[in-house]
C-alpha cells in the first residue's frame, strides 16, 4: 500500500509484515511508552528533594569517605580472597550440575516431552528467586559464614547457566548426532562425540561470564552475612568507619576490573 503511489505500474506490492503484525507492534509500542511516561511522573513525585538535594548529599558523603585508609589493606586481603574463592567454588559446582540439567532442558536432546517440560519449569522457578533472598534464607538456616553464600551462588548461577547452555544445545547442528546414531553409537557416545565438541567453546565462555557475575554477587551477598569481603564492608559501614570502607570499595573495584579483564580476554580467544 505504501509503494503504490510512486510505482508507475499499478501492480500491488505486498507489505513486508502482515497488517496484523503491524497493528500488534503498534499497540505494544504505545503500551510500553505509556508505562514509561507514567513511571517517570510517578518517581518525580516520590523524590521530594529532586536531583539538587542528591547532589549536595553526595558531596557530604564523599567528604566522609576520603581519604581511604590504606593501612587496612593487609587486613582486608584475606576476606577478599575468601570472596573470590566463594565465587570459584560456586561457579565450579554450578558448571558441573548444569550439564545434566541443560541436557534435560534441551528440546532436541530430551525428546521425552514431560521430562523436558518439568526441567524447564524447574529452571524457570529457580531463576525467579533473587540471589539476595537465597542468601538471607541460607544464612538463616546455616548461620553467618561462607557456606550459605556459596549455596546461594550455586543455585543462583545454576539457574542462569542451565538456561543459557540448554539454548546453546538447542542451536547445534543435529546432522552429526544423526550420523553417530546411525553408526551404532549409544546416547552417551552420541552426546560426547557429536554434541560436546559443538557446545564446548560456548560452555566455557558462559561459565566464565557467570564467574564474573558471581564475583560481584558474592560481594553483595556478604552484606547480608554470607561471608567474604561484603561482610567486612558491612561491619565497617556499621561502625561509621568510612575511610576503611572506602579502602574496601577500592579493592573490590580493582579486583572486579582485573578479573573481568582477564575473563573477557579468555572468552575472546575462545570464540
Amino acid at each position: 500500500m505504501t509503494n503504490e503511489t510512486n510505482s508507475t505500474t499499478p501492480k500491488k506490492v505486498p507489505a513486508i509484515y502482515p497488517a496484523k503484525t503491524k497493528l500488534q507492534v503498534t499497540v505494544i509500542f504505545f503500551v510500553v511508552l505509556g508505562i514509561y511516561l507514567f513511571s517517570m511522573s510517578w518517581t518525580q513525585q516520590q523524590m521530594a528533594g529532586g536531583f539538587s538535594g542528591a547532589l549536595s548529599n553526595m558531596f557530604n558523603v564523599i567528604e566522609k569517605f576520603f581519604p581511604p585508609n590504606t593501612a587496612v589493606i593487609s587486613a582486608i586481603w584475606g576476606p577478599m580472597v575468601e570472596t573470590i574463592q566463594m565465587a570459584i567454588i560456586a561457579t565450579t559446582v554450578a558448571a558441573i550440575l548444569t550439564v545434566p540439567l541443560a541436557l534435560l532442558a534441551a528440546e532436541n536432546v530430551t525428546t521425552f516431552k514431560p521430562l523436558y517440560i518439568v526441567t524447564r519449569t524447574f529452571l524457570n522457578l529457580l531463576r525467579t528467586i533473587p540471589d539476595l533472598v537465597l542468601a538471607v534464607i541460607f544464612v538463616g538456616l546455616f548461620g553467618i559464614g561462607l557456606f550459605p553464600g556459596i549455596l546461594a551462588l550455586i543455585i543462583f548461577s545454576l539457574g542462569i547457566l542451565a538456561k543459557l547452555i540448554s539454548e546453546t544445545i538447542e542451536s547445534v547442528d543435529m546432522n552429526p548426532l544423526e550420523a553417530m546414531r546411525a553408526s551404532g553409537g549409544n546416547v552417551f557416545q552420541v552426546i560426547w562425540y557429536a554434541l560436546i565438541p559443538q557446545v564446548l567453546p560456548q560452555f566455557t565462555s558462559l561459565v566464565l561470564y557467570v564467574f564474573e557475575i558471581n564475583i560481584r554477587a558474592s560481594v553483595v551477598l556478604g552484606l547480608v552475612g554470607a561471608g567474604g569481603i561484603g561482610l567486612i564492608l558491612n561491619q565497617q559501614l556499621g561502625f561509621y568507619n568510612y575511610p576503611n570502607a572506602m579502602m574496601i570499595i577500592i579493592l573490590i573495584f580493582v579486583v572486579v576490573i582485573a578479573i573481568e579483564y582477564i575473563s573477557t580476554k579468555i572468552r575472546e580467544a575462545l570464540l
Partner: protein
Amino acid sequence: MIEFKDVGLVYPNGTEGLKKINVTINDGEFIVIVGLSGAGKSTFIRSINRLVTPTSGSLLVDNEDILKYRGSDMRKLRTKTGMIFQNYNLVKRSNVLKNVLAGRLGHTSTLRSILNLYKKEDIGLAYESLQRVNIAEKIYNRADELSGGQQQRVSIARVLTQQPKYILADEPVASLDPPTSHQVMTYLKKINKEDNITTIVNLHFIDMAMEYADRIIGMRAGEVVFDGPVSEVSESTFEEIYGRSIREDDLRGGADKS
C-alpha cells in the same frame, strides 16, 4: 540379505512415506534408487537402519525382522549398516581422525570411547580407511577446513572404519560438482566390489544411476514402480518412473572429466 515384505510407513502427520514395498536386496549388490523429490527414497533407505520405523509389514535384515528391534539389537543393526549423508554430517570442530574413529562407536564400550581409549587396531583401521579414499594427509585437520568432496571422502572413511555389511548412501553427491560427484561414486563402487559390501545409493541423476548401478529401483509416491538390472533400463523407463519426460537437470554430466 535385506527383504522388504509389504512394508508401509505412515508418518505421524499422515503422509504415506512407503506403500506396500516388496523388494529383496542380495548380498554384494550395488543398487541405485531413483525417483522425484518426495518419492520416498530417503524413507526407504532410512527404514533399513531404523532411523525411521515402518508402521506395517516386515523388514528382514539377515533373516531377522528388524521392526521388532529395540535397544541393543538396534545398536547391532546400526553397527553393521554404515550410512553416508548428503551433508557429510561430520563434527565440524573435531579433527578428521576423530570423525573417522566415530565409525567404531558401535564396536566400542561407552567407557572406552568417552575416555578416548581406542584400541590400536581401531586407530590403524581408521588411518587405513583414510588412505583408501586418499585423504590420509588431512588426518589432523579440522573437518570444516576441508572442501565438500574431501568431507564426503572422510565420511566414506568413517563408514569403512565401521566395517559394515551394508552401506546406505542418501544422496551422497547432491551437494558436489560433477567431477567430484564421479570421484565419490567411484570410491563407493570400488568399496562395493573390493569389500563385497552391499550398497544402496539414492540418486537424482539418471546418467550416474546408469553408470554405477548394477540394479535400479524406481520409486514414485511411496511405491516401487520399477525394479530391474541396468541392462533393462532405457530412457522410457525413467520417463515412467518420473511420470514426465527427461530434462537437462536430471543429468549430472561430466562423466568424462573424472
